């Protein structure tokens, strides 16, 4: 079966972000960018399905500016066969991204679409669910285990264990389906240098939202971005006795 995997270019998760002085947004100039960590897990899962002989082809897709092709090349180096870039300089939010991905799904007809559960920049946790809705597919969000019954042909089922608030839940979906990855689904591999070199030769198609016949511009206005309230600087205590005393008499929380 064909697996489509969506990736997003985001600020590297180790970077301490800065808000722009005019409060218009977060400052991304000269900041290290990377593939969203949950998307790495999605790519890894797709590649593992291919290694198991379940997936026949893995297609990586992204929606975003030209620079996002770096993340598509990373996906190719990790084992994706080809890539599709929906190129736009608009500020794309979840619904626009989901609409673009839905068009790609319509053209590519994958049996399985894997996305990360959320991007660590917008922290929305929406695109996978929205894509499932737009394509009429079932969804398995926050997956920690994915088992394809059979080889993914028509009528085959997908069994997914999901991380829910009280523990784990297992559900079964009719294929084609959308899965979003949680952290414990797998441990992503690193791209090896020869694979990075080979990835440069793999096919990467570029389309625009206009080619797909959709609008990706957001209907949610970003009015302001502010730093969070700073916490008051705390104190270090010298002993457990002092700690208990402070909690009882100063903070009055115990």
């Amino acid at each position, binding site marked *: 079966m064909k697996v489509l995997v969506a990736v997003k270019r985001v600020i590297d998760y180790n970077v301490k972000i800065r808000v722009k002085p005019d409060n218009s947004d977060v400052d991304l100039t000269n900041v290290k960018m990377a593939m969203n960590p949950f998307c790495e897990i999605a790519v890894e899962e797709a590649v593992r399905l291919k290694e198991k002989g379940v997936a026949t082809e893995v297609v990586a897709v992204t929606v975003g500016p030209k620079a996002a092709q770096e993340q598509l090349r990373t996906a190719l180096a990790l084992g994706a066969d080809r890539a599709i870039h929906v190129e736009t300089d608009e500020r794309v939010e979840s619904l626009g991204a989901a609409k673009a991905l839905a068009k790609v799904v319509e053209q590519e007809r994958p049996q399985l679409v894997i996305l990360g559960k959320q991007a660590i920049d917008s922290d929305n946790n929406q695109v996978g669910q929205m894509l499932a809705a*737009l394509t009429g597919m079932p969804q398995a969000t926050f997956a920690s285990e994915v088992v394809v019954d059979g080889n993914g042909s028509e009528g085959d089922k997908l069994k997914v264990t999901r991380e829910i608030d009280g523990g784990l839940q297992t559900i079964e*979906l009719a294929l084609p389906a959308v899965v979003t990855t949680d952290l414990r689904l797998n441990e992503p591999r690193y791209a090896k240098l020869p694979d990075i070199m080979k990835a440069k030769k793999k096919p990467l198609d570029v389309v625009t939202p206009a080619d797909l016949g959709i609008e990706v511009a957001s*209907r949610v206005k970003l009015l302001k971005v502010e730093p969070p309230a700073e*916490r008051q600087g705390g104190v270090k*205590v010298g002993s457990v006795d002092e*700690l208990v005393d402070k909690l009882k008499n100063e903070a009055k929380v115990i």
Partner: protein
Amino acid sequence: MSVLVLAEHHDGLLADATAHVVAAAQAIGGDIDVLVAGQDVGAIAEAAAKLDGVGRVRVADSATFAHQLAEPLADLLKALADDYSHVLAAASTTGKNVLPRLAALSDVAQISEIIAVESADTFKRPIYAGNAIATVQSEDSLKVITVRATAFDAVGQGGSASVVPVEADVSNTLSSFVGEELAQSDRPELGAARVVISGGRGMGNGENFKLLEGIADKLGAAIGASRAAVDAGFVPNDMQVGQTGKIVAPELYIAVGISGAIQHLAGMKDSKVIVAINKDEEAPIFQVADYGLVADLFEAVPELDSKL
């Protein structure tokens, strides 16, 4: 203007989060209805009817909605959404699973995990793991919103809303429930506890988490963990506090053997008082801790336990 709140419930009980989401609905204004969807949910509907500010509890009681799978629940919400200007749910795994599906079915954006209501169309929400707060305005006619429960005080329980059944023609051929494994715990729920004590990689192994139990019992606390402790297999993942786990804001948060990575801080830095116990005095957790104790946790924790 009228607001529909999707009730959060587990094991036949209305979850506390619902009372917090109703508070967010009150901040938006207008009539408030609560939707209780599931199987055998009569008692849950009765509990929801007692929440202050709720005008009506709508009940969809059917096997189709058992386990609150996303596909039928989103279809149900879509069938009801025309009557409302806002649909709200807790930013729980259920709310996060269902509401974006509803939003896309309705061709509107979704606003995730709001922490404040500025007006009926303008909200504040954290982005970048809580390192920035965005103010966003929705231009959509229907606002679909998940609410960070810890950011709103729960409404009281003096209400007496009417309970009315919902007739909706919803079926589900796409997904089915297979089973679940729920962690058993007699302690307060992590998201709602007044005190949380969490262990990190410094705990060394799962057995050592027992060290935290004495303190948890004495303070009526829930026990949490950092991602490092979960990934190392010390404790199950539903105990994880952080950007990718649970967001907590208790009165007292005690971080034991936790360095304080930004992803962890995203889940607990709105706690009223933070205590850190760590042997590394350079650990970033001390930058947010109100009280820091630089000490070996294997000595400090038993001592703290004995002195409470």
